[in-house]
């Protein structure tokens, strides 16, 4: 990206995003925040990872966050989305990722968390999200990512897990949530991410999948998640990280995508929305900043496309014992 064009397209208002995230945690009087209460653990992961990517994780009280996380853990080892709720693999990964951000994995009973995750693997290699049995390739990714961070992948049958994911591949090269389900960029990220973490990317038809993924870019530069859908900032993460993992990111126009993400900022109050001029939220703020990180935007720390954690955090995990 040339410096002149990046000047024309405006800048990332990083300080305002930091303030927006810190404020969002305090504002609890909107209907949206009341109905999001049950997935506070995901919200915490989105907010805190964004802060870390902007090098501002130090502005939050680590002790407060960590002790709240631990009150969400159940006897089974799994984590709930908030205090008093049931555990689910979705929140378990977020909890582990947040602890990794703070370099606090050591406070976990790793064996217990790993057993919870491993216990959700089914005979065919797939994973359920919780004891009630819904199966989805999202849960396969979550299990594999979680156990990779905890270095306990040996607790599951990796070969079967990989075979199941591959069985969800469609003729268009993409992946869905179960065999025969429609390709969706979010599910593709999960499948490609899980295959990357298990060293199985050779099972992906990279050119065919890259073809489908690069067709997600529209005239505005933004990416959509499925054919005929409007572009949305969150796919800057799902599509882009997948393209990077399969080494086909040069097939899309990165400069136009940077501009699209920057156009979705609320320049006054901070935060990023799904599309220009829409209302901002923490989910899209995270995916916007993470997308810019993948696009090597100056001032944003590098993020790992498979772990969805800052590269320095991943390095710390890999290189500690």
């Amino acid at each position: 990206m040339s410096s002149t064009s990046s000047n024309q397209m405006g800048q990332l208002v990083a300080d305002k995003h930091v303030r927006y995230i810190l404020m969002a945690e305090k504002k609890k009087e909107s209907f949206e925040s009341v109905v999001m209460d049950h997935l506070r653990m995901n919200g915490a992961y989105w907010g805190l990872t964004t802060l870390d990517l902007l090098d501002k994780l130090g502005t939050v009280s680590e002790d407060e966050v960590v002790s709240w996380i631990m009150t969400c853990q159940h006897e089974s080892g799994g984590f709930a989305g908030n205090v008093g709720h049931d555990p689910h693999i979705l929140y378990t990964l977020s909890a582990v990722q947040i602890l990794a951000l703070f370099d606090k994995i050591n406070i976990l009973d790793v064996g217990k968390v790993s057993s919870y995750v491993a216990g959700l693997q089914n005979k065919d290699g797939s994973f359920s999200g919780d004891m009630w049995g819904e199966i989805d390739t999202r849960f396969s990714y979550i299990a594999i990512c979680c156990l990779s961070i905890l270095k306990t992948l040996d607790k599951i049958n990796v070969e079967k897990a990989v075979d199941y994911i591959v069985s969800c591949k469609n003729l268009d090269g993409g992946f869905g949530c179960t065999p025969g389900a429609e390709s969706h960029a979010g599910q593709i990220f999960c499948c490609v991410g899980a295959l990357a973490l298990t060293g199985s990317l050779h099972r992906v038809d990279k050119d065919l999948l890259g073809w489908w993924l690069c067709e997600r870019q529209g005239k505005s530069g933004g990416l959509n998640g499925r054919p005929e859908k409007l572009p949305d900032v969150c796919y800057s993460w799902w599509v882009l990280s997948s393209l990077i993992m399969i080494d086909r990111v040069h097939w899309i126009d990165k400069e136009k995508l940077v501009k699209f993400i920057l156009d979705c900022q609320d320049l006054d109050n901070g935060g990023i929305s799904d599309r220009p001029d829409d209302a901002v939220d923490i989910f899209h703020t995270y995916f916007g900043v993470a997308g810019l990180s993948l696009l090597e935007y100056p001032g944003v720390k590098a993020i790992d496309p498979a772990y969805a954690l800052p590269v320095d955090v991943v390095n710390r995990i890999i290189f500690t014992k």
Partner: protein
Amino acid sequence: MEQGSSSEEDCFGLLNQFHHVLQSDPLIDEVGFIHPSQFTLLDKEDGLSNQNKPLPYNGTSRNFWNQDHKLGISTDILIQLCKDAKHVFLAALEEYKSHGNACNESQIMNIESEVMKHSQAVLLLSSDFGTAWNARKLILSKTDQLSAFTEELRLSGLILSNSPKSEPTWSHRRWIIKMISRRFSTPQEIITKESKLVESIGERSKMNYRAWYHRCWLVSYMAIGQVLHELNKSKRWAALHVTDSSCFHYRRRLMLRILESVNVKGSNAYDKTEAHKIWMEELDWNKELVERYVGREALWLHRRFLSLNWIMYFACNHSSETGLSIITNEEVAIFIDNEIHLLESSMIVPDTKFEDFQAQALYAAVYMLWLPKNIPELWRMLEEKLGTEKLKCVLSTIAQERPLFLQHLVNV
């Protein structure tokens, strides 16, 4: 536990009012959050059609609106109502989990009915509240009455009327159906009803991945006859919603299921000639749609699937039987000729002001190159049939829209 600002009495007042509305009309089939200003408007509309009917509330209550089994909840009370419902539900759940074993049967039934009542209120307001769905599953798994499960289908249908994309709600539906089929049998009429439900939700909530996934999931419960019926039935809907790629994916799922049946023996077996006929019909129908609705990505992607499968499954099988390669296969040659005709007519852009024509040209050009990407032997045939000039034209059409991607194609 966090408490709302209202006094205990107010809290129960609002929540009790909500429960009262729900109990007084067990046939509510649609729910929505509405701004108080809409209440008057709805009353007026309703007054025109039901002049003799008294209003259920005396006008002082502007919290709920309920007529003709439609329920409106005022957006003014949502936050408070939701907080209160959650508070009461979580308290009931805690009581259920901690005292369940120490109580006698009637006490347990009492607590259970409290949990059911309050989880229903919570879910009508906050459909993704997984713990409330789980509590219902826990209680329902102890029952052996079919009616409890069908009632649960009704409730989750009601919630979907307001939150058509709620993944936990769809997931709960699948859990109920699995329970029914495990404990009773897989009633075909449930599958048919589910299929209809998805279609009607798809009507109001466009390109709803979760809804269409649910319909795809049902396919594994269908016998071949029902698969054919569904294929037939979803055709009209698809033709009216040509941008809805999910509906076309549903058709692909059904068609692949038919191919599976060609390879089996027994009651679910299907004749290959008939399958071939279905494929040709779908290709012809898709061509009609492509020509009528210019520049629709979903239609061209559907064509990729149809053509690839037709060549690989129907034409190539002939080839292997006769020992001929694809390139000398006459059927394939005729097929490609027809596709080139379609390409040529699609690449005429009569008016550059309308993006649809340019989109049509792009989709056609990419489609033509996508086929040999999957069947490399087609490259030579395509090059011969297209000739250098037309091939250049195809490539430059792609270059205009996706220059970076084209570099890769040319390198190949």
